[in-house]
């Protein structure tokens, strides 16, 4: 028994961390807020092999599994990588597109405008087609997290030959990746907050010494710490082709959505007025959290799926 990331996945994450520390600074996220597709960042991710992480080696990818996927995506979440990161990674195995970072693939929304459509090169419709985009013509819809870059999708899609199994795995990976990304965002917000409350002085002491700050943070950490093993378990279930994959993926997304949202609330509150401005970086990660906690299914949606899979029935 060994419950945790493999050494390979840990090494991948560490390497990615070094890349992202310089390639994905808050300034890059702010550029994404202004509509920049961040091509240099994606090129850097591409040279590290990230877009093709889940694509088989014989098709030009890294051929890694879902454990490596969640390790990498969590680190991307920590750095707040803008654009369709999870969407691109889970779409690559379904579409034949370059994995060098020149293709940024988002996923067609089934209700209104599509996230990242204004900064993506392609849109995958899991019903079985692929659109090529001309981002410069996209009309961006205003969102709370402006890096979401929602836009309508038009044009003639190319048909894709997708099996039910392909699509099911794609959906599971999307929800799981978003869960991992959320926990990365939460970890970043926690780090920003811990650093702040250690130095911010009020009433003659660092505010991090007050239980009013400590205890809500500790409770929020309980949430994220217990969501992470669920993400790992779901990843392993996908690796193993486990019958319980859907159960564990929904559990992971439900726990991660709630835990990351709660972390965003506690971190914002711990900052007092200091966090309540767009000039400070915290909001970049908080607002992404709010959007992603509801993307690929809300916590409530996934709890409902868990209940169904456990055989919990409403009638007596």
């Amino acid at each position, binding site marked *: 028994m060994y419950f945790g990331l493999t050494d390979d996945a840990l090494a991948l994450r560490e390497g990615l961390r070094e890349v992202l520390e310089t390639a994905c600074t808050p300034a890059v996220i702010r550029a994404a807020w202004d509509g920049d597709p961040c091509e240099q960042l994606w090129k850097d991710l591409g040279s590290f092999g990230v877009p093709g992480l889940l694509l088989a080696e014989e098709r030009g990818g890294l051929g890694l599994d879902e454990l490596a996927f969640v390790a990498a995506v969590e680190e991307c979440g920590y750095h707040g990588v803008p654009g369709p990161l999870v969407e691109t990674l889970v779409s690559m195995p379904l579409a034949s597109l370059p994995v060098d970072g020149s293709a940024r693939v988002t996923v067609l*929304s089934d*209700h*209104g405008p599509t996230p990242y459509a204004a900064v993506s090169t392609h849109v995958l419709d899991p019903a079985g087609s692929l659109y090529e985009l001309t981002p410069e013509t996209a009309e961006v*819809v*205003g*969102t*709370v*997290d402006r890096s*979401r870059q*929602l836009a309508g999708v038009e044009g003639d899609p190319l048909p894709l030959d997708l099996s039910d199994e392909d699509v099911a795995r794609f959906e599971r990976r999307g929800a799981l990746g978003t869960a991992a990304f959320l926990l990365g965002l939460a970890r970043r917000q926690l780090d920003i907050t811990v650093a702040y409350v250690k130095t911010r*002085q*009020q*009433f003659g002491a660092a*505010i991090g010494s*007050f239980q*009013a*700050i400590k205890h809500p943070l500790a409770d929020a950490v309980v949430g994220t710490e217990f969501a992470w093993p669920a993400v790992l378990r779901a990843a392993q279930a996908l690796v193993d082709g486990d019958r319980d994959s859907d159960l564990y993926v929904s559990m992971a997304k439900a726990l991660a959505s709630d835990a990351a949202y709660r972390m965003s*609330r506690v971190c*914002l*509150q711990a900052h*007092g*007025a*200091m*966090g*309540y*401005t*767009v*000039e400070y970086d915290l*909001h970049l990660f908080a607002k992404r959290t*709010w*959007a992603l906690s*509801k993307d690929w299914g*809300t916590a*409530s949606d996934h709890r409902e799926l868990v209940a169904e899979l456990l055989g919990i029935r409403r009638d007596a």
Partner: protein
Amino acid sequence: MDLRETEAEQAFRAEARAWLSANVPQGLPSGDTTEGFALHLEWEKKLFDARWAVVSWPEEYGGRGASVWEWIAFEEEYYRAGGPQRVTQNGIFLLAPTLFEFGTQEQQDTLLPRMANAQDLWCQGWSEPGSGSDLASLKSRADKVEGGWKLNGQKTWTTRGAFCTHLFGLFRSDPASERHHGLTYFLVPLDTAGVTVRGFARLDGDEGFAEVFFDDAFVPDSAVLGGVGKGWSVAMATTGSERGLTLRSPGRYTATVDRLLTMARGQALDDTDVQRLAQAWMDAESYRLFTLQQVTNEQAGRGRPGESSLNKLLWSEMDIRLHELALDLLGPEAELEGPWSKGFQFSLSGPIYAGTNEVQRNIVSERLLGLPRK
């Protein structure tokens, strides 16, 4: 117990309702941008012209001498009609009660009419970069000079500071003093030489905040409100007083809940939604009822210490829950810019401004429950 409105109160409410329904502007942009603020000023002037800007003030200053019950009724009608948050609120709701209590006749006669008609627009200069919850640690200085004072230092998190014309603020007038001693409350025109204002953006991106820098800014002795060295007690005296509840009138939340129920009516709801909607209504209604009780108790001399902190804890946490529920009901649309997502972001400031909720919990436990400070 007497929940009936008098004939006069009924007439007042009816007149307010009729005027508001005919005049409240719909779809005003945020008042926290340069363009939006200008449109809000038009609305403020319209309110003033019809004598609805400051209903609880005496008639000679542009009010109607309304009782606090009438004021509550006015606020209910105002928000029910969809009236926007008042860009003048920090003047008319925070400074004015202090002016009525501590101002000289001349200060009242000069400043109140210009505040009522939105000619002078006031912002609050309390917080500093190093002094937020711990306001008494403030460092901005007032040094006595011939005929007045020289102000130096920096204020920040000044709401709508970039759009206002005047600031009321606390400065340390006795350099040897510590904590809440030796502070003085000053009234400062922002066009005073040596005053610089830099606007910056809130969480929702609107430029609703400002930093205000004071660099040997001279103000005359008449700029002192309530006496030299009395700044702390002047600033605190009106907190929790009858007019103190004017910060967040219940009508604001009952109107929010009405909008929430209207939105919910158009869609399929599950049991959880239904329970949360019922709770939302109960929360706002209990806040309204608590306020009625609070006013009654204060009028009967039965006010309790810490009550306004209970009040603040309720409305601020409730406001977030109301908006979280609205966003959950909106589903995927929740992330789009719109009144609910904007309101949600604004609601997150509730547990922070006007004294963080952490400070309010200290106050409730120490003043209302009598727990030891340390």
